[in-house]
């Protein structure tokens, strides 16, 4: 592999890792508040559809992205009502969210666009080149969302680790009853965390239809939401670890494309398996000692 190819690999790892980074950072915020959102996959799918719809209607990817975030937060609100309001089991509610998103995006797509064979396309975020067009600058010719995702990493870190809000959020995730006794409003914190998580997962989904590709396909999130869940475990519930995880998975997907392009004689289907097998391998080695927030996934009534 030449040096240039390495830069190209880094560039595409960044691009492919961006939807995962958004979703995983959102999931981090939610999990730190003690809410496990299995529904990220559905939220991403909803973001991808709403982003596509918004952009198709207005011709602007920025408006599309806003629509992606708004629709995702709507779905997040459903989760918040069920998990915080009804104190529902988080795994079951999240699973319902995934199924709901699959159904709603499928029905809405047919309702808006009919049953056309041709793939509809929309304008997308164009690459913003930082610096010149030297080969080693390839990683810095990316659409706006990629830079935004990278900027979010220190932001999330500062908020979680260095602010009162972050401290309260982590308290809610570690010991909700103790936090409540200190006057922290556990329910409100969790609703906020779920909505932020949904917003970010929705933007991650929007990246799929507005940056990563220029169209919407039913079920296009293709398990990325679940991979984002795994990245949070891999990153040990820390923003920098999550950045590393997202880049690793981005690189795995990019490498899979490069192997295909290079004509390596491995079945395409086996290459497609790579990210999922990698997730399992990573979990097998990362889960043993990882320290999840103590109240993660627990119902208040327990």
């Amino acid at each position, binding site marked *: 592999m030449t040096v240039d190819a390495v830069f190209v690999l880094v560039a595409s790892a960044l691009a492919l890792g961006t939807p995962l980074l958004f979703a995983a950072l959102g999931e981090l915020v939610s999990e730190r508040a003690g809410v496990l959102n299995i529904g990220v996959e559905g939220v991403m799918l909803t973001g991808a559809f709403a982003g596509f719809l918004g952009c198709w209607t207005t011709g602007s990817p920025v408006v599309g992205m806003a629509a992606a975030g708004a629709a995702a937060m709507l779905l997040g609100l459903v989760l918040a009502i069920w998990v915080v309001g009804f104190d529902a089991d988080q795994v079951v509610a999240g699973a319902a969210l995934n199924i709901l998103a699959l*159904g709603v995006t499928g029905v809405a797509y047919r309702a808006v666009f009919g049953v056309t064979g041709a793939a509809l396309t929309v304008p997308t975020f164009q690459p913003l080149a930082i610096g010149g067009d030297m080969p080693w600058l390839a990683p810095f010719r990316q659409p706006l969302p990629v830079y935004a995702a990278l900027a979010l990493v220190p932001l999330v870190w500062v908020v979680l680790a260095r602010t009162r809000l972050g401290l309260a959020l982590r308290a809610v995730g570690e010991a909700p009853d103790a936090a409540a006794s200190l006057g922290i409003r556990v329910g409100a914190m969790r609703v906020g965390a779920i909505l932020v998580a949904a917003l970010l997962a929705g933007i991650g989904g929007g990246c799929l239809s507005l940056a990563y590709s220029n169209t919407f396909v039913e079920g296009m999130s293709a398990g990325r939401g679940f991979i984002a869940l795994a990245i949070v475990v891999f990153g040990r519930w820390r923003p920098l670890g999550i950045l590393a995880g997202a880049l690793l998975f981005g690189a795995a997907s990019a490498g899979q494309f490069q192997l295909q392009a290079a004509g390596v004689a491995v079945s395409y289907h086996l290459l497609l398996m790579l990210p999922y097998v990698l997730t*399992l391998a990573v979990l097998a080695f990362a889960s043993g000692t990882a320290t999840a927030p103590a109240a993660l996934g627990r119902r208040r009534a327990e």
Partner: protein
Amino acid sequence: MRIAARLRALVVPMAACIAAVLASSMILLAAGADPLHALGTLVAGALGDRFALADTLIKTCPLLLTGLAVAIAFRSGVWNIGAEGQLLMGALAATAAASLVGALPAALVVPLTLAAGVAAGACWAAIAAVLKVRRNVSEVIATIMLNFVAARLVGFAVHGPLMESAARYPQSDPLPAAARLPATTDGLHMGILLALLLVPAAWFVLYRSQLGFRWRATGDNPEATRIAGLAPDHAMLAAMLVSGGLAGLAGAVEVTGLTGRLFEQFSGGQGYTAIAVALLARLHPVGVAASALFFGALAAGSGAMQRSAGVPAVFVAIVQATVILALLVADSPWLARARIKTSPAARSAEAA
């Protein structure tokens, strides 16, 4: 009191179904379809005539088997979201096995083919179970990842080693006739009888055997089970193996009874629907039979609805999701508190 509890166990799921159908109809209305017309074609497509009924039963069969699989796992406190992958591995193994054992005496072919499916499903579930017990990996994520891997493996198989000898389409050769389950002219195959026989069997194991007791104890309180010396890890492993085996059987039955060959997109998401089936059944095997029939009818009807009312069949997913959400509301401790406050016992306690 007992009667009231039993009545509640029946009324709550029914109310959830009604609420779900109403909520889904509103979504149809929002999408610009006529919900009454759509639901009418759905009911006709599910129950309207002999063919519709046969189709409903055909669609019920895999849901019944995977529903039992999910119910047993959930009851044991293991979140097996992987029935989809286990079903696919069962179908894959059954297809491969059928071509290997097809020449053996006929009485052996079907049992061996189905056994291969059971074994493959159990092995696939065992991966997640071992990761959970030994490496503390969330079985939710592991089983979902294994679903994706299984789908790619099926894709690989039908493009590669199992591709039909004509090599034109990504599908396997038809199964040898000896490996096919007997079926009526409507396509209704023996699998549904097999699935129905497994309902009392699952009930017996869950509620009348020592293993089932350990499963339920583990599902209710793994810590207490550990302290009582009942090895919850082993109970979870066993539950996952049985659960995976049932889902694998569903795949083997589909390929030997219905499709007769393996292809890409072999499963229409039955493994995921199974979650709704099991939850609607309140994780009870007898309930699974009823809720599998409900979702089987929905699946059969939705095809008809797509053809004649133009509402995409994926609409069924909305019904599934709203059923689950409605059940979660019914189970909310918030409602339970309200119920305790208004129960006669609470009132007399207050008066005292």
